[in-house]
């Protein structure tokens, strides 16, 4: 580690809380807010003094944001702090800020991102020495670090979705670079749907491609009345909402294919095949061969299936199914 411990050796002092700049979050790593920390401080006192830097316009918190906030909440007039002695480099402060968090507890994704970001901002040669990252327990793989860093600059709602595990790291990397409105709209949707990564990916792809095709913003596609209605429907659970939204988007993205699928299913339903006889079309109606699957256990069942097959061959809807594929089972029109 590029240690300058001699320069940053600190002393503990009692300072007025009002002298600490409450708006300076530059070294904040934690994503937790004070919540009930003030209760434990009230009962046990402040067990460890926060770390601050003596800045030109007051003290800047380097580590201990929640403790300072808890003391404020308790109405304290002053607070014991460890003060970093000047001149202290900002990078040394960043290392202290990160180390006092990362060496005490596992960091979540947003905290890791903040840690990398704050170190990166002040790193002496523009990038964090890998030895420092390793010593602080941060990822040292350059590719992973590059993906993590932007997380903490994404819109608050995206970060909140990541913290709730409603949006995975992989998905955050996908929606993060989108225009802000879209990233927020996706995060909001996924916080409500609580659906899997694959389904999220499908939704993002469908929405983005519809938007690109129509020269619109993704957020506008996501605010279409049909989608909003499903999201707000009180009689649907998460899974049902997800399923309906995927279906609606698919119909928008692939109107002719989705219509052909619907018509195929409607025709197939009219055949009343039952559970022991299944008819599957060629995938996406591209190939030419349909598949019939017969399920049976006993000879009598085979006999019944044979009779059913005989009926099927003469059924007009079956003929329509076999011959109408190329027209999407109707007059498929060009979009």
């Amino acid at each position, binding site marked *: 580690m590029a240690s300058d411990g001699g320069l940053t050796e600190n002393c503990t002092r009692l300072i007025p809380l009002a002298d600490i700049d409450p708006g300076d979050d530059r070294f904040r790593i934690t994503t937790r807010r004070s919540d009930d920390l003030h209760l434990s401080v009230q009962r046990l006192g402040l067990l460890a003094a926060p770390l601050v830097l003596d800045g030109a316009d007051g003290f800047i918190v380097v580590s201990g944001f929640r403790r300072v906030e808890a003391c404020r909440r308790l109405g304290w007039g002053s607070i014991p702090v460890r003060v970093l002695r000047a001149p202290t480099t900002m990078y040394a402060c960043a290392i202290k800020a990160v180390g006092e968090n990362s060496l005490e507890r596992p960091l979540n994704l947003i905290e890791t991102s903040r840690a990398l970001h704050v170190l990166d901002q002040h790193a002496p040669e523009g990038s964090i020495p890998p030895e420092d990252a390793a010593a602080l327990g941060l990822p040292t793989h350059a590719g992973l670090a590059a993906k993590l860093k932007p997380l903490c600059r994404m819109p608050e709602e995206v970060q909140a979705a990541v913290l709730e595990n409603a949006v995975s790291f992989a998905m955050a990397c996908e929606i993060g670079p989108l225009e802000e409105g879209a990233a927020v709209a996706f995060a909001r949707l996924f916080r409500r749907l609580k659906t899997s990564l694959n389904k999220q990916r499908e939704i993002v792809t469908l929405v983005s*491609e*519809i938007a*690109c*095709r129509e*020269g619109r913003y993704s957020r506008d596609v996501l605010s279409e009345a049909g989608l909003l209605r499903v999201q707000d429907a009180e009689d649907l659970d998460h899974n049902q909402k997800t399923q309906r939204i995927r279906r609606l988007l698919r119909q928008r*993205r*692939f*109107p*002719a*294919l989705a219509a*052909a699928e619907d018509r195929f299913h409607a025709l197939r339903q009219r055949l009343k095949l039952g559970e022991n006889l299944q008819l599957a079309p060629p*995938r*996406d*109606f*591209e*190939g*030419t061969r349909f598949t019939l699957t017969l399920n049976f256990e006993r000879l009598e069942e085979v006999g019944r299936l044979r009779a059913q097959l005989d009926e099927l061959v003469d059924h007009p809807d079956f003929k329509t199914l076999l011959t109408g*594929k*190329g*027209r*999407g089972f109707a007059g*498929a*029109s*060009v*979009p």
Partner: protein
Amino acid sequence: MKIAALYIDAQVADRPDTRRICRRLGVPTQTVASADDVYADVAAAEDPIGSGKQVLFLTRNKGAFLKECPGTRHYTCCGYRILHIGSYCTMDCSYCILQAYFHPPVLQYYINHEDMASELDRCLSEPGIQRIGTGEFTDSLIWEPWTDLSRTLALRFARQDRAVLELKTKTVNINGLLDIGHRRKTILAWSLNTERVIRSEERGTASLNARLRAAAQGAQAGYPIAFHFDPVVITDGCEEDYRQVVERLFAAVPPEQIVWISLGAFRFMPDLKPVIQRRFPDSRIVYGEFIVGLDGKARYFKPLRMQVLQSLAQAILSRAPQTCVYLCMEDDEVWRYALGFTPAERGGLARMLDEAAARIGGLGSGPRRR
């Protein structure tokens, strides 16, 4: 795109063709011991795909000059043979498969023409009709400003009666071909599209008007002419747009001089999609209704292809019923719907094309090579 730098494989540095190209290009030149040096330079660029269009690498073709058309078994292929004169292209079409085909893509031109000539001699002495083209891994005529290859090839094909050479292009670089005795053994072919597609997707190519004017010039010079509506891009109103192109085509070239017209709906390898999205963010071409075809390529949903290809075929055949119209990489179901027959009913696509080549190019008959 203009060539900004020339790399020369040390093995071909002293060849007269190399020196001639250097003189004609007049750009900074660097001799390299290995293709890896060129690839490394191109790969280091911010946009290697675009960068590869601005450097020309003169080298030897260490493999075969003649290759079979890379068709797949699920869809009907034309059975064309590719004469591999070079690779990649100076034009920049969003949908070009060559962007994802070479890693990294580099404009290469092969100088060892004596090897090509002897391979061609062997091929042209085989029995049966053959259709050979240079426009698969590159545009046939982008090389004209710096080389005389097309002229040399056209003269070589003029000395035999069993094969036709198809030069497929989106340029108008035919001046060097107009005054030679081609004996109709060279087909000048243009890839055509709607004004809208050319404007939005075909950067650096000749306009539709210019292509049709060049085709008319080629026809006046007695060349058999071919057209390729490939890729057909399905969008709102595209059928009418394609009908208008057909009208203009027949206003430029008389039907009796057209050897064939192919129709191929846009299809692409999955790897190409992110390339198009990255390099052509304004292009909407990949947002059509695509499904995964039997060959793993993205293709328009079949009924959409069938409808547009049928409409285009009808537009052509209503003007020129005798013209050989064929579909590129489609199955029998699409053929029957769009054209009313399957290739097998006419002896196979290769035979249909051989017969068209024989009729328009005056080739001798004989059993097919394949």
